[in-house]
């Protein structure tokens, strides 16, 4: 009897445990916290995409770095130029005040490396979010382990006289409620964390988007410069080719006109002679012959001209072909580089959306979807491969 009464005094702690965890459960949402691992992975890949976009710009900046001068310096130099008198002309060295140095690729690289390094912080941040989610979701498991240990201790002594199965049931239930309580707290902490980090993340996002805009603009300027310099390098040849094109077109038109003029054939002359019984057209064959010989001479002259043009064209052809090849290479690089930068820009935009989506998903306890970000990053990876092959 005494033991029974003692047993009754031992039971209340179990009740404490259950009451405690029941309270936790009442507060808890009792749903697992959304998995944010996709966001972490995509953030790591985004960092790689931003790095690749910077590499494309860096390579372009270094491929042809030519110094120049400002417009003001050019105007001063031009004013000092005198036909044939070298002493009047201001040398390029004298215009150092208005010099415009080649783009500082080292400075760009250093700044871009700093940008990419800053994204490391975003990766670690994403991992820490994942850590909170894991802690919340693993809460039930931890609670279960502790509860199992307590149950083992209690069943070993069986001080309560309560069947071990009942003990297990009580402790398991307690563990469940503690776990759910942890999930609930983790969910709340996650919401608070994401909420308070929101403005900083938005600022990071805006700054990264600005960097991508800068990178794209810089890349376009660099390509623009290569194209202009290529045109200047080959201007002599392309100008000659254009001149030959026009001349050849004119000559060909003239030639076609000459051929189209109806000329009396020998058969026509004979027919006319046989038709004209009185022989009144006797002068015609002579006139036709003069006309024909003049036309023949003109045709011969045009044909000769076209022949000379062909020779000239063959002489300039290798240079024009070289120009076309180089221009085509620049265009290839332009296309591939802009594709990489454009895709990285899309990935940055998708990353911003993904963070907002994660905030909403945590609030609503539904799965986090980073599919658009993942797709954007996959696109960047494919484009980087293509760009590297160039």
């Amino acid at each position: 009897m005494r033991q029974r009464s003692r047993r009754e005094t031992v039971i209340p702690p179990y009740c404490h445990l259950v009451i405690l965890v029941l309270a936790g459960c009442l507060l808890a949402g009792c749903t697992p916290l959304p998995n944010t691992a996709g966001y972490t992975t995509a953030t790591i890949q985004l960092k790689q995409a931003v790095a690749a976009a910077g590499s494309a710009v860096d390579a372009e900046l270094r491929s042809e770095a030519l110094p120049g001068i400002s417009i003001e310096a050019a105007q001063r130099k031009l004013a000092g130029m005198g036909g044939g008198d070298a002493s009047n002309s201001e040398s390029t060295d004298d215009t150092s005040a208005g010099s415009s140095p080649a783009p500082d690729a080292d400075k760009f690289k250093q700044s871009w490396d700093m940008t990419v390094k800053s994204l490391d912080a975003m990766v670690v941040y994403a991992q820490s979010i994942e850590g909170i989610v894991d802690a919340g979701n693993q809460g039930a498991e931890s609670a279960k382990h502790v509860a199992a240990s307590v149950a083992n201790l209690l069943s070993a002594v069986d001080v309560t006289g309560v069947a071990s199965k009942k003990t297990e049931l009580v402790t398991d239930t307690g563990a469940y409620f503690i776990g759910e309580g942890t999930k609930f707290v983790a969910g709340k902490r996650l919401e608070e964390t994401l909420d308070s980090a929101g403005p900083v993340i938005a600022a990071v996002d805006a700054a990264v988007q600005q960097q991508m805009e800068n990178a794209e603009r810089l890349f376009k300027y660099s390509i623009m410069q290569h194209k202009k310099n290529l045109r200047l390098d080959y201007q002599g040849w392309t100008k000659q080719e254009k001149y030959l094109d026009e001349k050849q077109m004119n000559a060909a038109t003239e030639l076609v006109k000459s051929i189209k003029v109806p000329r009396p054939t020998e058969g026509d002359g004979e027919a006319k002679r046989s038709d004209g019984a009185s022989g009144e057209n006797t002068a015609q064959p002579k006139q036709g012959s003069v006309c024909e010989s003049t036309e023949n001479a003109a045709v011969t002259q045009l044909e000769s001209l076209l022949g000379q043009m062909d020779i000239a064209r063959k002489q300039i052809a290798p240079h024009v072909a070289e120009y076309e090849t180089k221009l085509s290479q620049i265009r290839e690089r332009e296309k591939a580089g802009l594709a990489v930068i454009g895709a990285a820009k899309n990935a940055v935009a998708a990353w911003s959306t993904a963070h907002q989506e994660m905030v909403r998903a945590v609030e609503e306890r539904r799965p986090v979807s980073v599919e658009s970000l993942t797709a954007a990053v996959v696109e960047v990876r494919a484009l980087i491969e293509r760009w590297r092959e160039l």
Partner: protein
Amino acid sequence: MSDIIGFEKCREALERLLAQVAAAIETARRQGPDALQATIDSETDRLVDFAGRAEPIDDRDAADVEEIRQLVRDVVNGIINAAENEIIGQVEECAKELSELAKKVDRRTKDNEREARNLHLKPVREAIDAATNMVEALKDAKDGLTDGDDDDVKAKIERIIAAIAEAKQAVQSA
């Protein structure tokens, strides 16, 4: 073939063109980076076209005209270099801003990591706290045991109390 023949004509034409290019770029600068880029593209195109049209009258002014062409090349590169270096300056500024923001993110991350550690221990702490409540009840139960048969139970209760105390200390110090 060309309408700008001879050094003097080339110089006059380039003077006019440079003034127009400078004015166009200045106007575009006020309209934003896209307008500026488009204008620099079209205006440097005009300069390149000019270089293609500039022709010497004869060998005597060929070197001067060539010098004008070189000047055009220098100014084309100069205009684009200036725009590129301006953007590189912006990239540098933006990188510094990002670096500062990264420090703020780092602080958030540390808070998150601390939070995660706490959350990992939370269920354990709660279970231990709940078990601690049992200790008092077990002590009462032990005090109530007097018969010789209860010695074994007493010892077991002692072990439970010790185990719970040990676990509690371990969790608190974690």
